[in-house]
């Protein structure tokens, strides 16, 4: 009797949970466009970070489609086709640089979006799902970066991918029992053969141009739907005095911001080739028979985990990242009762860490290592 009761109440709970997150009565254009309002206060800039991330994603799709016309995903031709794009194809270099710069922009703003959303406590009921979707979107974005890094098939691409995949396998030795073999199997699945080679390139290519975009678009759809249905979170403790309408005011402001972003992106891509930050021996086509050239490192957005990985024992990093991952997913429930002051403090500390590790990670590493 009691069991029955609890199970029915559980089902009812689940149903009402879903109904609260996807309120059908609010899922119409009228509600999502005309009635939605955006609070105006000192943290309002945080509301724009998500749109900026999406802008860079749209640029990624467009430039990516352009690059697809010339890129060839085979070990013998990949590097040459990329060189062909930059050297011969009209505005090929510009488009490729835009793709690279905009990838960095997308990741940067996705992280900023996450941190501001955390500080503004935008994960409160009924926005838990929005938050979780966001975390998944961030993971997909990082995977985009990792898979895209391999495609030019130059020294740094292949060697950094080798290091990355090997790190995945190394997780295995810290896992108990049945899980012990899982990372190795995962790595072999993604790698496809004994060493990083044609199969790896093919798999990464498929992930990068088909699977990940589809997954990202799907999740983004739910994320945006949730944002529109529930409206912007309040963001600050005291009730904001002013509101502005989402349509047209906020949306049009967003558009002008995108205009500025486009100009900055265009100028950067036109003037600074993304690869000029790397030493040139790393840009030579990958040579399976030769030694690994010095200076292999991942893209800047992995520095925050890469340099600690170099400095600390592997299990510390593993434990820390496992913990952080769990905390990120469970944030809506862990920080349910936290005040915005506490959240802002944590967010500031995390941003400081990310900033220092990304900008000075290399110096810290050399300081401590040598």
């Amino acid at each position: 009797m009691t069991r029955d009761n609890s199970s029915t109440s559980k089902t009812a709970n689940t149903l009402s949970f879903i109904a609260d997150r996807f309120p059908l009565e609010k899922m119409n254009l009228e509600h999502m466009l005309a009635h939605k309002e955006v609070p105006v206060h000192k943290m309002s800039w945080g509301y724009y970070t998500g749109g900026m991330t999406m802008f860079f994603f749209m640029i990624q799709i467009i430039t990516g489609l352009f690059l697809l016309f010339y890129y060839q995903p085979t070990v013998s031709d990949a590097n040459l086709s990329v060189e062909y794009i930059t050297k011969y194809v009209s505005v090929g270099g510009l488009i490729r640089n835009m793709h690279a710069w905009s990838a960095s922009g997308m990741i940067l703003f996705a992280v900023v979006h996450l941190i501001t959303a955390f500080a503004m406590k935008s994960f409160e009921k009924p926005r838990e799902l929005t938050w979780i979707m966001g975390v998944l979107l961030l993971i997909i974005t990082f995977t985009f970066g990792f898979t895209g890094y391999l495609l030019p098939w130059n020294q740094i691409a292949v060697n950094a991918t080798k290091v990355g995949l090997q790190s995945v396998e190394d997780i295995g030795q810290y896992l108990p029992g049945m899980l012990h073999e899982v990372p190795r199997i995962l790595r072999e699945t993604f790698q496809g053969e004994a060493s990083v080679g044609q199969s790896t390139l093919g798999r990464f290519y498929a992930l990068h141009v088909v699977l990940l975009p589809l997954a990202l678009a799907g999740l983004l759809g739910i994320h945006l739907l949730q944002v529109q249905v529930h409206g912007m979170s309040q963001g600050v403790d005291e009730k904001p005095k002013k509101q502005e309408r989402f349509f047209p005011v906020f949306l049009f402001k967003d558009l002008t911001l995108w205009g500025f972003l486009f100009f900055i992106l265009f100028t950067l891509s036109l003037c600074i080739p993304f690869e000029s930050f790397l030493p040139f021996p790393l840009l030579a086509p990958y040579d399976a028979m030769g030694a690994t050239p010095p200076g292999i490192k991942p893209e800047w957005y992995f520095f925050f985990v890469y340099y600690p990985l170099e400095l600390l024992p592997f299990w510390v990093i593993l434990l820390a990242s496992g913990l952080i991952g769990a905390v990120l997913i469970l944030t809506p429930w862990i920080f349910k009762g936290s005040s915005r002051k506490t959240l802002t403090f944590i967010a500031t500390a995390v941003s400081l860490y990310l900033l220092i590790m990304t900008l000075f990670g290399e110096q810290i590493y050399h300081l401590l290592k040598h």
Partner: protein
Amino acid sequence: MPALDNFFLIALPYLAVVICLVGSYYRIKTRPMTYSALSSQFLESKGLMWGSLPWHIGIITIIAAHFIAFLVPGLWQALLSNQTVLLFVEAAGLGLSLLCLFGLAALLLRRFTSEKVQSVTSQMDLVVLLVLLLQVALGAHIAVSLSWGALWSVGTTVPYLWSLLSFTPDLSMVQDLPLAVKAHIVLAWVLILLVPFSRLIHMFAVPLEYIGRPWQNVVWVSDRRKEAAPQAFVEGEARRYFVKGGLAAVFGLSLLSVGVFDKIFRFFFGPRLTAHQETELMTTRLSRLEATSSQRKLELERQENDYILVGSLAELNSERGKYFIDYTMMPALAFKTAEGLPLLISAKCTHLGCTVGADAVDGKILCPCHISYFSIDTGMPNADSPAKTPLPHLGWVLMDTRGNQLVSYSGKGAVKGTLSEAQRASARVYIAKAHQIG
């Protein structure tokens, strides 16, 4: 026909300009109320919109382009030297002249069909309309049959106009032009001549402030329409912003697309390489394919053979290792020990799988990725290296040139067999499938 030319191309222009200036001045001063377009909007507005709007958009742009070419021929020519721009200008010119023709036709039709409008139509209105129609038709004809007029006019009509302006008339540049062009020029002077006598005079009252000012709404003073009045004002005010915004958007977008369009088109069209570039590209592509195929051959070789040649014993030394690929397709290094025997060690770093460097300094080789030093004798990494496990030694077999096995080492344990000095010179180092573990 020099006399005719002289009259139409020298006398007429001066006459027309003088009459136009004096006449217009006189008319504006003495009869200011007629200094207008004599709008008939209240009489009939639908036909007017279809006629007047396209006509004015088209003709103002076209005349502006004529004026730019006349005022700054150098800049104009420099702009048009880009083929894309020239194509664009020519196409736009033709399109706009067709727009003008359409507008004129609509206006003419309206003059003929609307009873109300006919009652205010003078003979002069019809004359002006017909001359304009003829003039635009001539222009369109020239644009089609004598293309690139935007460019050749810089060397013909522009110097002619400047010679008139500087009172040193010079027909040498225009007298051999086709009749259609000459007629186009003459009609232009005729139109200027007609300005003070017709509604054309309204061009001196160009209502520039119309663009930005609020819409003028004619509000009827009747009860029925009273409620709608404030609404109409609001709409008018909003529309003013829409017009500004629309113009800005059109300008911004066209600026962007002018810059982008030809480049994007050429992106998809694909590059056209010179023969030299093509050869270079082919050579590189072929060499990359060969590298891949040699890699595949190595794989096949390892699949099929029990022994794989590393190199001759004589070429090995203790300072610089020789790279080779082992049975698992992983890189490995071959050195020579102090006893003169081969030393084969895996070159795949046990930390994260980078390929270890070939130079042995003090018997140690370096993985550049995360700075791990490995002793080649034991394979052990330095204590402070990120790598913790040793690089494994590989088994090997020494054979003479006829394939007789001399000495072998399985990777662990002791070396089997001995090597005489005579055999040393010709001995070759092999790796064996039998030594492969797993």
